[in-house]
């Protein structure tokens, strides 16, 4: 079995500690340093977790898209692993978005959920990537990576639709913070970006661990297959 590269082994704990410090600082900034919003009060601080989680999920879905296209062209197994890992971690971040959104909506809108275009399209996006993961998990056909890559390409088309849905449709969801004509206090923007950086570093580390796990799992599966083949030959 292949062991870890020495550089990777050393870098991971250092990056892990730095990310933990960054996440703690981001938490302090969100709960203490950021100014309190006048109309919503403290509940607006949910935004510092909700929005960076959404951005991180979108980036991971785009990584999944790029890796899937690369896999379809080159049939590169590493690209297939990157696609799987980015979709899985992206679904985790998208789950955070779908959970924190209604928790914010209840005190602000008075309802947990509404079938508005942004919320519904985010739920559909989540379902597409969950179905992608189910396909990866439960299909053992040799064509599974290619089928999953094709599904990922279609799923990625949904990402810009989710982001721009609040421009094209009348929706209850607030306007985008950046590039959507909305305005934000510079101190709030600073806290938002710190949180995004912290969650992006965290997502990178989780993807790294998950990539290594998936590579090891595939090597173990290959070794088991080889073992079975040798048993068959020995028995014949």
């Amino acid at each position: 079995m292949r062991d870890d590269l020495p550089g990777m082994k050393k870098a991971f704990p250092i990056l892990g500690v730095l990310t933990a410090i960054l996440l703690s600082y981001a938490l302090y900034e969100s709960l203490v340093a950021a100014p309190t919003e006048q109309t919503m009060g403290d509940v607006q601080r949910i935004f510092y977790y909700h929005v960076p989680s959404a951005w991180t999920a979108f980036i991971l879905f785009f990584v999944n898209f790029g890796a899937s296209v690369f896999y379809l062209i080159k049939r590169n197994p590493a690209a297939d692993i990157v696609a799987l890992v980015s979709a899985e971690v992206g679904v985790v971040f998208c789950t955070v978005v779908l959970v924190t959104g209604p928790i914010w909506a209840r005190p602000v809108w008075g309802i947990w959920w509404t079938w508005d275009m942004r919320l519904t399209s985010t739920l559909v996006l989540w379902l597409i990537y969950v179905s992608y993961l189910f396909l990866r998990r439960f299909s053992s056909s040799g064509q599974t990576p290619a089928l999953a890559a094709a599904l990922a390409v279609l799923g990625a088309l949904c990402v810009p639709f989710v982001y721009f849905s609040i421009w094209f449709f009348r929706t209850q969801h607030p306007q985008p913070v950046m590039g959507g004509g909305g305005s934000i206090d510079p101190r709030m923007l600073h806290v938002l970006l710190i949180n995004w950086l912290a969650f992006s570093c965290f997502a990178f580390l989780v993807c790294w661990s998950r990539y290594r796990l998936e590579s090891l799992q595939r090597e173990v599966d290959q070794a088991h297959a080889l073992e079975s083949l040798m048993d068959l030959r020995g028995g014949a």
Partner: protein
Amino acid sequence: MRNGYLFAAYAATWIIHIVYLCTIVSRYSRVKREIADLKKPGVAS
């Protein structure tokens, strides 16, 4: 009460991440066990 929603959102975020990290750790230990089994003498690796 409004702070309760803030706490719930932050707690939910970290619960989701920690549960996912726990699944990764559990899968790691299973793979490590399988690797140890494969490395035993007389087993192909």
